């Protein structure tokens, strides 16, 4: 049930109210009739109806105030209620006001039409006629009384007593009495023998009598009859008075009363004309007010009841808009609005179910996405996805590891933009961009570039993505750093070459050498000096070259042979300083920058010493001027592992781009006597110790090598 402002059983209240209003108005209407017994209650009914109007006005005002407050708060349904109430009030008020206006007009005109000059005059004339008739009768009786007084003048009281009776009989009077000026009755005669005492004048009559010496007036007699009382002085000295009571004929009295009643009634109505108009107008106004106010109040209640479901719907809709799909509204009536509410409830149930399903699906997608992201993140291959305009959408952790730039931070950027910010990767990025733009199918390409860790070789595979309708929606590039793989392949190949050389070349060398020596031994005595010397030179040359070839083959064997490391914990700083001490006599100027004095690594000291020897010797041989070598040790972290980074920089001629690509390959040397295996062996040893080595291309003062080895313990900074 909706809550209305007036919490009463609406139907019962409305019926009671209208019943009370109608009863009260009917009673008041009846009370206005003069003949009605309700006339005595008129004032009370007026007060009750006025009070009723005031109470209804209060109720309407309270409802209107509540509505205004709801409007200010912008509560649901308040505007609809206002519109409906306003419309109702307008529709009710306009005809009611018109009816009221014309009713009052007709009422006033009707009352005015009761009175006019002719009736006024007729009433006055009728009254005057009655008065003339009565006065004429009185004058005749006065004359008659005076004649009787003349007959009694100067007579004794005894004689008067005797004549009063005959005078009464002749005159037709009701009563004749003679009394002294002291009020003493001297004689009397009456039509009613039971009247012992005559109707003597009262004090007022005595007063007038003494002033005027005579008195005549109409007196109300017994039994509603009218009398004429005439008193005249018998003697001139007013010692005795004669009072005669004459009857007025009943017919005359009735006619006079009738005329007087009509006259008085007319006069009264004429006097009350304005009051009558006011009174009727007041009643009409009360009727209008009571009816209108009751109707407006009932309209408030009814409209609130009608709007209640709409209000609930608005609230429900707002709740749904705010995301509350559990909203269920009460169905109050099985009407159209009830059907609407039921439909709303059904809709919210469906939306809630759809939302739950969508949420579950979204969760599943999210899980899948997270799963894929986890897989992508843990892939060793870098993966970068692009949209249709080749803007980066996603990039995994491996992309960062391979390219050494946080690609995932550049989502929404293009590869050329990335290239402008990281110029060292400009070649590879622009190459990938070019391949992306050109490719309509899956492509694969090896791209070599010089990264911060030296030369890198990427194996890139690109796949353009298409929608179901064939439109390009983006692309995915998967790339892997195959530098180590390629190097391993090369190393394996070179190892095989070395092994074959050792087997195919070294084996014949010993017989060659022995044969040459045997030739020298046997023929040197037999030949002449010149020939013997020639032979000796030839055999020596053969032996020397064979020895050289043996050394070369031994070096290859050494390179190809798996190392037999004896790993122990050594302090790299101490090792470096030992090696440096060996080269100090040669004039090399060392400068060091060690982050710590204690850098323990697990390594084979002999191998590491060889690494250092090779690198320092390499620097020494590459430098013509006084050789300056700077050695740096720093701690770096990579993939949650601590490494010691050893940098060796010389002041030599440096390396050109071509050298950079093959510097660590076997048989690559710029020196006349070098075998080209020095740096290859260095790289091999470093990699066997789980480290990496590359040329520091950012160094321009000569050649710089950076190698990283897993560190066991890195002491506190100096």
């Amino acid at each position, binding site marked *: 049930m909706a809550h209305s402002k007036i919490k009463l059983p609406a139907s019962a209240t409305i019926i009671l109210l209208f019943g009370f209003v109608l009863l009260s108005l009917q009673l008041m209407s009846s009370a206005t009739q003069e003949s009605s017994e309700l006339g005595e209650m008129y004032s009370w009914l007026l007060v009750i109806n006025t009070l009723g109007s005031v109470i209804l006005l209060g109720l309407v005002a309270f409802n209107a105030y509540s509505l205004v407050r709801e409007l200010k708060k912008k509560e649901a349904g308040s505007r609809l209620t206002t519109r409906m109430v306003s419309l109702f009030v307008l529709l009710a008020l306009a005809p009611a006001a018109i009816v009221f206006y014309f009713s009052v007009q007709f009422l006033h005109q009707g009352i005015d039409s009761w009175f006019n000059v002719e009736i006024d005059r007729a009433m006055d004339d009728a009254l005057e006629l009655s008065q003339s008739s009565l006065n004429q009768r009185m004058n005749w009786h006065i004359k008659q009384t005076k004649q009787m007084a003349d007959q009694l003048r100067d007579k004794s009281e005894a004689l008067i007593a005797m004549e009063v009776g005959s005078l009464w009989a002749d005159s037709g009077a009701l009563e004749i009495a003679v009394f002294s000026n002291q009020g003493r009755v001297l004689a009397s005669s009456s039509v009613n023998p039971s009247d012992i005492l005559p109707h003597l004048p009262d004090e007022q009559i005595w007063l007038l009598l003494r002033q005027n010496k005579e008195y005549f007036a109409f007196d*109300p007699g017994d039994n509603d009859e009218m009398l004429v009382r005439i008193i005249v002085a018998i003697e001139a000295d007013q010692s005795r008075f004669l009072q005669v009571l004459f009857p007025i004929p009943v017919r005359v009295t009735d006619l006079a009363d009738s005329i007087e009643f009509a006259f008085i009634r007319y006069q009264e109505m004429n006097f009350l004309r304005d009051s009558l108009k006011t009174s009727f107008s007041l009643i009409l106004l009360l009727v209008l007010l009571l009816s209108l106010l009751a109707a407006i109040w009932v309209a408030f209640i009814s409209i609130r009841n009608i709007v209640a479901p709409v209000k609930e719907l608005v609230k429900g809709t707002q709740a749904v808009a705010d995301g509350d799909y559990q909203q269920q509204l009460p169905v109050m009536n099985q009407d159209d609005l009830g059907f609407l509410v039921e439909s709303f409830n059904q809709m919210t149930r469906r939306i809630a179910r759809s939302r739950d399903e969508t949420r579950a699906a979204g969760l599943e997608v999210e899980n899948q996405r997270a799963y894929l992201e986890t897989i992508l993140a843990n892939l060793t291959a870098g993966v970068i996805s692009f949209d249709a305009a080749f803007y980066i959408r996603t990039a995994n952790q491996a992309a960062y590891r391979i390219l050494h730039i946080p690609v995932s931070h550049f989502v929404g950027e293009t590869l050329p933009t990335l290239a402008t910010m990281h110029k060292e990767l400009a070649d590879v990025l622009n190459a990938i961009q070019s391949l992306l733009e050109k490719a309509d199918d899956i492509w694969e390409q090896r791209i070599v570039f010089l990264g911060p860790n030296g030369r890198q070789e990427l194996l890139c595979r690109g796949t353009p993505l298409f929608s179901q309708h064939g439109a390009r929606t983006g692309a995915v590039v998967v790339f892997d750093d195959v530098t180590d793989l390629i190097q391993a392949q090369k190393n394996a190949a070179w190892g095989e070459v070395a092994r074959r050389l050792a087997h195919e070349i070294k084996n014949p060398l010993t017989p060659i050498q022995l044969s040459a020596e045997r030739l020298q031994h046997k023929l040197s005595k037999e030949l002449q000096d010149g020939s013997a010397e020639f032979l000796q030179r030839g055999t020596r040359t053969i032996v020397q070259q064979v020895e050289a070839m043996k050394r070369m083959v031994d070096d290859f064997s050494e390179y190809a042979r798996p190392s037999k490391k004896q790993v122990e914990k050594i302090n790299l700083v101490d090792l470096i300083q030992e090696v440096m001490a060996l080269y100090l006599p040669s004039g090399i100027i060392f400068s060091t920058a060690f982050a710590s004095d204690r850098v323990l690594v697990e390594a084979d000291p002999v191998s590491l010493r060889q690494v250092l020897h090779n690198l320092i010797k390499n620097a020494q041989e590459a430098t013509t001027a006084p050789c300056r070598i700077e050695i740096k040790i720093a701690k770096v972290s990579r993939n949650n592992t601590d490494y010691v980074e050893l940098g060796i920089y010389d002041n030599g001629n440096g390396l050109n781009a071509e050298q950079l690509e093959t510097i660590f390959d076997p048989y690559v040397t710029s020196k006349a006597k070098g075998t080209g295996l020095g740096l290859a062996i260095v790289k091999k040893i470093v990699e066997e110790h789980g480290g990496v080595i590359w040329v520091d291309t950012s160094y321009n003062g000569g050649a710089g090598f950076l190698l990283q080895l897993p560190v066991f313990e890195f002491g506190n900074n100096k």
Partner: protein
Amino acid sequence: MLCLQIAPGMAEAGDYAARIEYAELNHIDHGYDVQAHIDYRLSPTAKEALHKGVPLTWDVTIELRQPGMLWDTIIHNRKLTYSLQFHALLNQYVVQTPFDRSEMFLTLSAAMNFMAAVHDNTPIPAELVAAGKPYLLAVKTQFNRELLPIPLRPVAYLDNRWFLSSAWYTWPIQK
């Protein structure tokens, strides 16, 4: 005669309110007789209404009260109704007394004078009044608007020209 106090004063607010000029409580054979004099005044509107045939009625209320702490106890109560009407045919004024008697007067002042002299012929029983106790004699005259014609009644309650009643006037009486 018992103690009596005359205290003329104004009645209810209005220029035409009646005034109680005096009241008396006289000891007679079997009780006490109340006599009072009321000065009735008629506004021009009331006079016009009277001459147009509207009867005017006053209720004279006489009470004998015994004072109390919170309120007075009414031990005797009498209401005398006087009605004044104009007889157009005879050009006289008729006063209907409380004792079912009509008195006709040639002038309005004569009729008013007659009404002014209140004399209750029903005495207050002697046994109601105890010796040595204080009493209050209260008199007022109330113009009865409810006996006016219906259209005139609402106006009579609002227009001070129809405020013809007096207020209560009380006199302390010690037996």
